[in-house]
């Protein structure tokens, strides 16, 4: 396994850990707060979405011409 491949796999794992933490935080906020949870939940959804679009969906690729 070459170094770049290993680095990319590690990056995927780190992103997953970030998503996991955010998801658990969302659950904690949503299940503990009986009211007023909308704003904190919306704020927490932003980094989750960004992580997936940026690192898993490679959005930047689109601006670079979309090549492999």
């Amino acid at each position, binding site marked *: 396994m070459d170094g770049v491949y290993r680095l990319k796999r590690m990056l995927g794992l780190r992103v*997953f850990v970030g*998503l*996991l933490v955010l998801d658990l935080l969302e*659950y904690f906020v949503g299940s503990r707060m009986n009211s007023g*949870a909308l704003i904190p939940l919306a704020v927490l959804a932003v980094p989750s979405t960004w992580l997936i679009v940026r690192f898993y*969906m490679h959005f930047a690729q*689109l601006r670079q011409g*979309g090549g*492999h």
Partner: protein
Amino acid sequence: MTMETGAQHRLRVNHLGLWLFIASEAFLFTALIASRYMIVGLDRPDDLNQTLGLAISLVLLLSSLTAYLAETAIKHGDRRGLLRYLTMTIGLGVVFLIGVVFEWNEGLRLFPPDTEFGSAFFTLIGLHAFHVLTGLLAMTVVLNLSRRGHFDADDHWGVEGVIKYWHFVDVAWVIIFPTIYLVS
């Protein structure tokens, strides 16, 4: 200045087309998520099974990781890795759908589709589950093609396209999960 080959041009158009398709799907989900707030406001039933919602969320997040690993594998010419991680992604997608069946079963008892929350719940979860199902079918086709020797480090648009779609399904759930289960 380098000249773009026909294959590179086609790949660029494919990427653009897929992102436009994903954007159109995002509008559909945004409209339905907005309708949840318009129809039901911020209310949710007290007996909603949030733990089950969290469990299937974690399963879908994990499937996004395995999908990413499958795409990364074929980009580096690792066909065995592609087959392994794509199979895992499909398996996790099936587990997610089984979780949806359980939550629908509970939902039918607690808030039937003819109630305000029920209509939002079944429409949103149903539309999302349909996307999961189509993603699973597409990944199964790609898995079978991979087994027959299709795709390599230089030519893997089929894998990339279907996995981007799968990640979009995950992004949609990242918004739907708090919208249905957590907002109050």
